[in-house]
Every structure is written in structure tokens, then in C-alpha cells.
């Protein structure tokens, strides 16, 4: 997601290549490029300036080192500084209360309702009993939206269709959470502008009434320079405990949200990476900094794989692989699991070195469609024992799936190759790693 900034920094660093050491003169141009790149990435103007000044200072202080190139040295300095700007070490969410109350706040359209549900899903996956509360009484169908999402993730939603007082609703929701023995209560609120005094007072009242353990400021990662002002205004009223950075699966450079941390000194706790309910990641500043510098993010990828892949299923497949019994049925179920992990291109971008390589390549989410169609057109017997697929069967499968016989042949060949490869790597830990051997077209 930060490819654009990375490539800009790459370009900036190129200016330093072939030069022996960092001097005032050769660093000036690069630092200017870095600042431009940061501003272009929506990093707050002042913070970008501050940042590049620090980088420059540190770079100049280290100009005696001859063992590394100036470029490498600067990469390290920028990386270190960026990690610091992004918030130091990972911050967890406070769930000490009983119930633990999480209040969501933010501007209109930042993704509060979606992320209330994603958070609920996140805690539910940890085996906690969660209650959602719909306190957005203003936007048409906002309550309905939360109800639908709650149904999807099988989390109960507290709402009062006729009540127009969000403070009361929140208060009643706390009671309901206690009565229902819910460990966690997530309160969705209406979007509001930071300059809307009445609405800001309202959410201040909700806070005072329910006394939440966590107040999460939900912010769109595409926000521009105004992000710091809005964050500051919300923080002044709510003294929030953390930030959720949403829509990071877009191609925004996300710089503005990064400056929020600097301005309000509050950690970014989660990032939203897509519209699926699983697309919520814990924020890791160090990984993010590496990502900005184009170093990939394999750890997140593996974690995502682990959270989606059914362990039992994985063990079963592992066993089948050992016995060389991997079938198209297993393959199909693997595809379904990978699809749950989110957008393919985002996934691939997390692999070190791949992000830049696939920047301009189209990887469709439909990449699996043809494969699924072909498998769906096979009989159960064919799926289990692909060897019986002779010429006429292949013809039938091709017709049935709307593909042609070459595509069917290609898939069968790839499947066979994959089986071979999997046999050799079946000792590797973690089912998630096997995904890189899946064939996909385009």
C-alpha cells in the first residue's frame, strides 16, 4: 500500500548512489526529495519538515562511516526515524473492564460502523462475548447497517429504533451488556465534524456517562492535511486512547494518519485493510515503516493466513499430502480460504520485493474464477481422482465451465506440479506458506 512513497524514496536515494560519504551538499537534495515525497504522501507539512530535519542531522553526524554507502545509511536512518514517527512499539487494546467498553468516534464516512463490526468479529474470534450498540441515530439506515453486519458475524446488536438520544442508548447498552454477561461492548456513534460543537458535546456526554476503557478515533487513511486538526479536536474533547486507520487497502500513501500519532501522541491500534469482516489488522509500526521503505511485510501475511486458515483443515491437508492424497476438493477448499484472506494483490504486496514488482500489474480478484469453474464442472469422482480425466471427460469439463480444453489441461498440469512441490515442502510449518504455489492466471 505504500508503494508510491517507497518508489519516491527509492528515487531520492538514487541521487546518493556512488557517493562516498554524506556531506551537507549531497544530502540536501535527497532530504528535499524525501520531504516532497512525504508531503505528497499527505504527511503533515510541519511534521515532514521536522522529520527531514532530524534525518539530515543524523545523516550528517554519521558521515565518517565508510563501511556502508550513503544510500544504505540513509535508508537505515529514515527507517529508524519512520518507525519512531509511527509510534514505537506495538500497543494492545485494553479489555480489562467488565464489560470493557469501546467507544468509536470520527468524521462522517471514515468507516466507524464497518470497523465496529470488524472489531466485534476480532474479539469474537478470541472467544470473547461481544455486544454491539447502535448509537448513530442520525444517518439514515445506520442502525440497520450495524444490525446487518451483526447478523453476518453472529454478534448481537443493541439498538432502540425509536430513541433519538444516543447518550441514553449508550447507557442502556451498558446495562444490556452487563445483563447479558458480555465481556466487550462496542458503541458505534454517528459521524461528526470536529467544529460541530453540539455534536462534539454529545459524544463528550456519551464518554462521561459510560466511561469507556477505550475510545478509538476512526480515521480514513486517505485524509489530507486536515487529519491533524481533526484528530486534535477530537482528542481535546475525548482524550481518545487510540486510532483505527481505515481503507488502507487503497493506494493512498497514508501519510496524514501517520502524523496523527505525532500530533496527539496516541497510538494507532488497528488498520482496516478491506471490506471483509476479517480485514482488520493490529497495527505494527515497525512493519509499517519497513513497508514504507519497500521491504515487504511477510509477518502480517503469515499472521493473516493463520487467522483465516482452519487449523484442523490444514492438518488434514497436511496428512493427505503426506499420503499423496491431495485432491481437487482440497484444492477448492484452499482457494476458498485464501479468498477469505482478502485482496490478492494486497496479499502479494506483503511479500518482500513483490510490492514494487506488481505495482502496475493487474491482479484480479477473479483470478480464481476460471479454476473454480473448472473444478465445479468435474464430477466428485474426478475431483478425488484426477487421473481418470481422459480426453472426453476433459472436453466435457471445458464445455461445462465455459473454458477450453487447453485451460483444463493447463490446470491439470499445474495441479500435478503443485502436488509434486507440496510433497517436497510438506514438512514446512504453517499451511499459509503453501499458498505461493497455487497457480493463478493473469
Amino acid at each position, binding site marked *: 500500500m505504500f508503494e508510491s512513497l517507497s518508489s519516491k524514496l527509492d528515487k531520492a536515494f538514487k541521487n546518493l548512489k556512488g557517493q562516498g560519504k554524506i556531506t551537507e551538499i549531497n544530502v540536501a537534495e535527497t532530504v528535499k526529495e524525501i520531504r516532497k515525497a512525504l508531503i505528497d504522501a499527505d504527511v503533515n*507539512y510541519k511534521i515532514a519538515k521536522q522529520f527531514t530535519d532530524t534525518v539530515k542531522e543524523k545523516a550528517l553526524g554519521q558521515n565518517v562511516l565508510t563501511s556502508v554507502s550513503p544510500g544504505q545509511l540513509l535508508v537505515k536512518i529514515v527507517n529508524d526515524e519512520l518507525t519512531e514517527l509511527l509510534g514505537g512499539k506495538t500497543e494492545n487494546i485494553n479489555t480489562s473492564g467488565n464489560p470493557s467498553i469501546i467507544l468509536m468516534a470520527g*468524521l462522517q464516512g471514515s468507516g466507524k460502523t464497518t470497523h465496529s463490526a470488524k472489531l466485534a468479529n476480532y474479539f469474537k474470534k478470541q472467544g470473547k462475548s461481544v455486544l454491539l450498540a447502535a448509537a448513530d441515530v442520525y444517518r439514515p439506515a445506520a442502525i440497520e447497517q450495524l444490525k446487518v453486519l451483526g447478523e453476518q458475524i453472529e454478534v448481537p446488536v443493541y439498538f432502540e429504533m425509536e430513541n433519538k438520544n444516543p447518550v441514553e442508548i449508550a447507557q442502556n447498552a451498558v446495562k444490556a451488556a452487563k445483563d447479558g454477561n458480555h465481556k466487550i461492548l462496542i458503541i458505534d456513534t454517528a459521524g461528526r465534524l470536529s467544529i460541530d460543537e453540539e455534536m462534539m458535546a454529545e459524544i463528550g456526554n456519551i464518554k462521561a456517562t459510560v466511561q469507556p476503557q477505550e475510545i478509538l478515533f476512526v480515521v*480514513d487513511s486517505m485524509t*489530507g492535511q486536515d*487529519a491533524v486538526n*481533526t484528530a486534535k479536536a477530537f482528542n481535546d474533547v475525548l482524550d481518545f486512547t487510540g486510532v483505527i486507520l481505515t481503507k488502507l487497502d487503497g493506494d493512498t500513501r497514508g501519510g496524514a494518519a501517520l502524523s496523527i500519532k505525532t500530533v496527539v501522541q496516541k497510538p494507532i491500534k488497528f488498520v482496516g485493510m478491506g471490506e471483509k469482516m476479517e480485514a482488520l489488522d493490529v497495527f505494527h509500526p515497525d512493519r509499517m515503516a519497513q513497508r514504507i521503505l519497500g521491504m515487504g511485510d511477510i509477518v502480517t501475511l503469515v499472521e493473516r493466513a493463520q487467522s483465516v486458515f482452519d487449523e484442523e483443515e490444514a492438518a488434514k491437508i497436511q496428512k493427505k499430502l503426506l499420503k499423496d492424497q491431495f485432491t481437487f476438493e482440497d484444492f477448492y477448499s484452499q482457494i476458498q480460504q485464501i479468498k477469505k484472506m482478502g485482496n490478492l494483490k494486497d496479499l502479494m504486496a506483503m511479500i518482500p520485493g513483490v510490492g514494487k514488482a506488481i505495482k502496475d500489474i493487474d491482479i484480479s480478484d477473479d483470478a480464481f474464477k476460471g479454476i473454480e469453474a473448472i473444478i465445479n464442472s468435474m464430477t466428485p469422482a474426478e475431483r478425488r481422482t484426477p487421473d481418470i480425466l481422459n480426453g472426453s471427460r476433459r472436453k466435457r469439463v471445458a464445455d461445462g465451465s465455459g473454458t477450453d480444453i487447453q485451460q483444463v489441461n493447463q490446470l491439470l498440469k499445474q495441479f500435478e506440479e503443485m502436488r509434486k512441490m507440496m510433497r517436497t515442502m510438506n514438512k514446512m510449518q504453517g499451511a499459509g506458506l503453501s499458498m505461493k504455489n497455487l497457480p493463478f492466471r493473469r
Partner: protein
Amino acid sequence: MGIFNFFSKEKKEKLDQGLEKTKTSLFDKISKAIAGKSSVDDDFLDQLEEILVSSDVGIHTTLKIIDRLQARVAKDKYVGTSELNAMLKQEIALLLDENKNENLSSFENLPGQKPYVIMVVGVNGVGKTTTIGKLANQFKKAGKKVVLGAGDTFRAAAVEQLKIWGTRNGVHVVSHGMNTDPASVAFDAVQYAKDNDADVCIIDTAGRLHNKIGLMDELSKIKRVMSKVQEGTPHEVLLVLDASTGQNAFEQAKQFTAATEVNALALTKLDGTAKGGVVIGIADQFKIPVKYIGVGEGIDDLQVFNKVEFVDSLFN
């Protein structure tokens, strides 16, 4: 007649209020920056850069404005603050001017054959559905028969949300419910509008990030399908942009244009603290006219964007 009487007094005040923030921050700072100075020095240019960049004008457009201003000053010289302000105003106006759009008309006079079809697109959370609700209200007030198409069949309760706007405005909403094919909703909505002699048909679509190829392809298909009801439909592809969005708005404009030939922009949430400076850059770069601005959550909080009014409100 014409453009100026479109803005009722109240509306004008609201626009002024919204833009007041931009104005004060921009010109207060400039005045401070050049107070007691008789030439454009680096210090001033640095501060001007900060002001423009902080208003989301973007680094490239900012540098362009600064270059132009410097060239102007070198040629014309200037005496004081007011001259420099005037020059700056002119240079920014010129960027908006390079956008060859006519001042877009009111809600009364619709070009082309009936129904006038508007397809509304944009990323998640920019205010597409709300903008449609407000647009429907304006067209209705102008005496037009309006039909809405609930083409956001993906986001939870989006259809419900549009239906509520439909009820508020007393206009018909064509819907197939959630998780249905949006292209078929769009087709049926346009068909319904045509069969029922409606003047305007507005199609909602699900918010989507512009880097999702599959979803952008779907949008192209929705657009394509509508033209099968009637050649030349949709007449207007309206990209909704959130005023608080930073430089990513450029990429949005680019990708949505590639997928659906966007020919109008709506800039929402201008009543917030976001400066709306992104408009200058987009107008300069893409030559797509800004047609509407959103200045609040109320049903009447939508205005036709008017370049003259906009620039005047910025600089008066």
C-alpha cells in the same frame, strides 16, 4: 439572471461560512508572512508553500502557483500586501480557469433527451448516497420527476439508506434488494425512468477503492449496461470526492475516469475544517468540472459549484 440568482442569500451565507475558514487561514497567514517586507524573498515563498500545502493544494500545484507568482513578480513588481494578494488570487483563478467548463447550469434546464441519467461513483464513505438524496431534493424542487436506482447492493443497509432518502423526497426508488446484480438494477432503473416519463434518473453505486480492478470493471459494466436502454446514457458520471481527502483524490479522479469517463465532480463535506484546496489541483490537472459542493448533512445542503462565486468567496 443566470448564475448569480441561483445562490439564495441563505445559501450564499453558508458557502461563505464554509469557505471563511479557507479564506482566513490563507490570507491571514499571507498578510503576516509579507508584513513589513518589500520583496518576495525565500522566507515568504516558504511560508506560501506551507499555506498552500496545508490546504491540500498539493506539492505540484503549489510549486506551479509559486513559479507563476515569481514570474509575475519579476515582471510586474509589486508594492504591498494587497497587490500580492491580488496576484495570487489571479494565479489561482487562472488554474481554475484552465478548466474549460462553462458555469454549469441549474437544476431546471437539463440537456439532451429524457431521462437525464446521472451515475454516481466514488470511494467508500465520501457521501454518495447522501449527495443523491440532496440532488433528488433539488431536482424535485425544480419541478422534475426523479427516479433513483439503488445500485449499492453490497454495503450493509445501503439500499435501505437510499430508500429513506427516496421517502423523504417522495421519489420512486428502483431496487432489487441487497446482494443483487448492480448492473441489472441500473438497467431497470433507467428503463423505469424512461417508461414512466421521468426527467432525471440517479443511479447509486457501491463505494469502491479505485485500485480494486475487479470492482472498477464492474463499474464499467454498470455504465455500459445503461447505454443499452438508451444511447448516450448515462449523461453524467458524477465522481464524489470528500473535501478532507488528501492527494489520493488525484488518483481517484484518474482511475474512476479511466473506468467510467467521469465528467463531473461533487466535493462533499466542505462544511468541515478541510480546506477544499484539492479542487484547484484537480481542476488544473484533469479538466473535469466541479459541479456540486456539499456543505452540510441537511437535505438542502447541496449547491451547484460556481467558479466565480467560489473564487470570490475565497478572495473577498
